[in-house]
C-alpha cells in the first residue's frame, strides 16, 4: 500500500484555461444578446466582439464514443471548446455567423437536437434512478428519454409563451428540483417492514428520528428488536427507507407518479415559487410511461394556447386562477389537492376573490 498517493486538494479548477477564447477575452464585458433562431444565441461585447452559441441536447449519460464525437465536432466547428448547461445541454461557441448552419447540419446528422433556448421546452433536469441510486421507485434516464421523445418538437422550436423547465424525480426527495412541470414518484402505501433484516442492519434510533410524522416506534417482533409503523399516521414519504433498507417503500403497483406544476426559480416578475400538485395516481408504466407523457402534453398544450407571452406556468395560473387551470386541463380537483401539512392555512383562500 506504500504507493498510495496523497491527494492534491486542488479544489475547483479555474475555468479560464478551458473557456472559449472569445468568452475569456470578453469576460464581464457583454452588453447585448439576441435569439436569431431556436437553438442559437448571439452575444455582443462592449468592444463589438461577437459570439454565436449553438445549443443542443444530449442523453446526459454519455458513453465514450459520444464524448469523443462531441470533441471531434467541437474541434471541427468551435475552436475545440464547449460548455455544458445545468440541464445537460451542450453549447458550442462560434466566432462567425457563417459557421452556424454547417454546425447545425453536422449535429443533426449525428442525432443531436438543436434547440433548448429561450421560450422552448428545454432538457429535463434529471436524477439517477435505477442506474445508480439505491432508493429509486422508478428510472430517471428512461423517463427523460421517453418524455423528450414526446416533446422533441417543443425543444427544437421556440413556441411556448416563455421557457418551460421540466424535472423528474424517482422518489419524493425530489433531486430533480422545482420546475414548471415536475414529474415525481409518490408512494401510496406504508413501507412493508422486513423484520428479519431490521434486527441485523438497522440503526433504529436514526430511522425513528427520520420520520416527519413520528409514525415509527421501536418494537419487539417475534422476540427480536425491530420497528413498527403506525399506518394511520404514515404519509408514505419514504424518508425511512434510505437509512433503513428493510423499510421497503417501493412497490411495483402502489408506487405511483404525481405531476406538479408552477415551480419557478427565477425572480422575474413574481418571486420564486414552489410547484403545486395537480395530478397523481399515474402508473409507473415502464419503459415509456405513456400516461405521464399524456398529462404533461395536455398541460403544455393548454399553457401554450392560453398564456400570454412571457408568462411562465406560475404567472399564467396566477392570472387565470386554479379553478380554471383544472377546468381547462380537464384534470380532476380532489381532496388531496388541499394541503394539511404545517403552514397549510396560508394556502387557503381567505378572501372572496373568486373568478366566475
Amino acid at each position: 500500500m506504500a504507493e498510495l498517493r496523497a491527494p492534491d486538494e486542488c479544489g475547483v479548477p479555474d475555468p479560464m484555461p478551458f473557456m472559449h477564447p472569445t468568452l475569456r477575452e470578453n469576460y464581464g464585458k457583454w452588453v447585448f444578446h439576441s435569439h436569431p433562431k431556436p437553438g442559437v444565441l448571439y452575444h455582443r461585447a462592449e468592444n463589438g466582439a461577437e459570439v454565436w452559441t449553438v445549443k443542443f441536447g444530449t442523453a446526459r449519460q454519455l458513453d465514450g464514443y459520444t464524448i469523443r464525437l462531441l470533441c471531434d465536432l467541437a474541434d471541427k466547428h468551435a475552436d475545440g471548446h464547449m460548455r455544458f448547461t445545468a440541464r445537460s445541454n451542450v453549447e458550442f461557441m462560434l466566432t462567425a455567423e457563417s459557421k452556424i448552419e454547417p454546425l447545425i447540419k453536422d449535429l443533426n446528422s449525428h442525432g443531436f437536437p438543436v434547440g433548448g433556448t429561450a421560450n422552448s421546452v428545454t432538457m429535463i433536469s434529471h436524477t439517477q434512478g435505477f442506474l445508480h441510486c439505491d432508493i429509486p421507485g422508478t428510472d430517471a434516464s428512461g423517463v427523460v428519454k421517453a418524455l423528450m421523445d414526446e416533446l422533441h418538437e417543443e425543444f427544437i422550436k421556440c413556441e411556448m409563451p416563455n421557457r418551460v423547465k421540466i424535472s423528474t424525480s424517482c422518489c419524493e426527495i425530489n433531486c430533480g428540483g422545482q420546475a414548471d412541470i415536475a414529474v415525481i414518484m409518490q408512494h401510496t402505501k406504508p413501507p412493508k417492514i422486513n423484520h428479519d433484516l431490521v434486527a441485523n442492519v438497522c440503526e433504529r434510533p436514526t430511522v425513528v428520528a427520520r420520520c416527519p410524522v413520528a409514525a415509527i416506534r421501536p418494537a419487539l417482533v417475534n422476540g427480536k428488536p425491530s420497528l413498527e409503523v403506525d399506518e394511520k399516521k404514515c404519509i408514505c414519504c419514504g424518508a425511512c427507507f434510505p437509512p433503513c433498507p428493510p423499510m421497503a417503500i417501493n412497490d411495483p403497483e402502489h408506487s405511483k407518479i404525481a405531476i406538479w406544476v408552477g415551480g419557478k426559480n427565477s425572480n422575474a416578475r413574481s418571486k420564486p415559487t414552489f410547484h403545486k400538485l395537480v395530478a397523481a395516481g399515474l402508473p409507473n408504466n415502464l419503459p415509456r410511461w405513456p400516461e405521464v407523457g399524456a398529462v404533461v402534453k395536455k398541460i403544455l398544450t393548454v399553457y401554450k394556447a392560453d398564456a400570454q407571452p412571457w408568462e411562465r406556468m406560475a404567472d399564467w395560473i396566477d392570472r387565470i386562477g386554479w379553478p380554471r387551470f383544472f377546468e381547462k386541463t380537464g384534470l380532476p380537483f380532489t381532496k388531496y389537492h388541499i394541503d394539511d401539512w404545517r403552514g397549510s392555512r396560508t394556502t387557503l383562500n381567505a378572501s372572496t376573490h373568486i373568478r366566475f
Partner: protein
Amino acid sequence: MAKKLHDTPMLDQLESGPWPSFVTGLKREAAKKDIMVDLLGQLETSYETKKGYWKGGTVGVFGYGGGVIPRFTELKDENENPLFPDAAEFHTLRIQPPAGMHYDTATLRKFADIWDKYGSGLIGLHGQSGDIMMQGCSTANVQPAWEEINAMGFDMGGAGPALRTSMSCVGAARCEMSCYDEARALRTIINANIDDMHRPALPYKFKFKFSGCPNDCVNSIQRSDMATIGTWRDNIQVNEQLARDYLKGHGMDKLVNDVISKCPTRAITLRNKADAISGDSISTVAVDDQHVIQIENHDCVRCMHCLNVMPGALLPGKDKGVTILVGGKSVLKIGATMGTVVIPFMKLESEEDFEKLNELSRNIIDFFAENALEHERTGEMIERIGLVNFLEGLDLDIDPNMVNHPRANPYVRMDGWDEEVEKANERKAAA
C-alpha cells in the same frame, strides 16, 4: 470484445425516437466492456420488476472521506452470488468541474480515456449538484482512476454530510446580466473550505450556489443553503439605440403588454416626451421620437423581467453587488424551503469584498456545524431557532428587506422594546 449481451426487450424500446438514447450509449460501451453488459442486465431486471438493486457501502480514496458513491448489487442468487457479476460493483466518482462547466476537447478526451481504462466508459455530464459523474467503477479501480483524474488538476466533489460541489451560472463569461465574477466567488469559497468537502463532518450537506443576477439560472434560492445572487443598487442603465430597435421590431402593443404591464411593481411608465419627469432615481429612454419609458428605480425590485424582454436596451446598473439568501433545500424533512435574505446588498469587487464573502461563508458553516441537529439542513435549523437567533449568532444586522411583512400576531414578549429601538437608531446612524 466483451461477452454476449443479455436480452433487453424493455430497454430496447428506449432506443427509438428522436431524442439521443442513453441505452444506445450503454450498448456501445457494452460491446467493449463486460461491466456494461452486466449493468444492462441489471437495469433490464429493474425495468421488469420496477425495483432498484443497488446498496451503498464504504469505498473511498486514500486521504479523503467522501466523494465516491459506492454501489454494490443486491441481485443475487440463492447462494449469494451476484446474477450480474461483472457489474456487482458499480461505484461513482464525483468530480468537480471547472466553474461554469467550460471544457476544452483535450480535457474531455482524457476523461473518456481514463474511464475507458478503469471504468465503464459512462460519464454523466453533469449531476444535479454539478458534478462530473464518472459512473461504473470496481472497488479496485477507484484509487488508480482517481490518481489519474487528480493528476489532471481535477478534485473530488462532495457527498454525505459535507460541503457539496457547487455551481455558478455562465454569467460574466457570456451574459450581459452578470453583476459579479461568479466563478471567482465560487472558487474563493469552495477552495477555502475544501476540507469540509473531503472530510465529511457536518451535521448534513451544505450547498453554495452562485447566480450572476436575479434570473437565478442555477436555482440557488431553492437549491442551496447559501445563495449568492448578483444585483445592483443604482439605476437601470439604458441604451437608446437598442430601445428604439426594440420598438421598431415589436411595436407599441408588445412594449405595453409584454414589458410595462408585466413589471411586478408598476415601476415602469410610458410617457410622451413632453411629459417626462426627472429625478435622481429615474431611468429614462426614448423608444421613438415621441415616447419615452421611465423607470422609478426605488420601486424596481430588480426582478429582471424588463431587462430580459428588452436585452441590451435595459441593463443592470453600475453599482453592482450581491444579495445573500440562506436556507434553501429540498423536501426532507419539513418540506421544501427557499433561502431567505440575510444580506440585502454587499459589494463584491475588491479583494477585501471577496475576503468578506469568504469569512461570511466560513461563519455560516461554523454556525451550522455547531447548532444544527444531526441530519438537519440550515433552513430547518433556522426554522427551529428563528431567523433572529441565526442573525445574532453571525453578528449580522437585521433589515426590513428580510421579511415579506412584519409579524402579524402578538404572541411575542416585547419588554426589550426600548433597547431594540436604540439599536435601530444606532444602525441608522452608522449607515
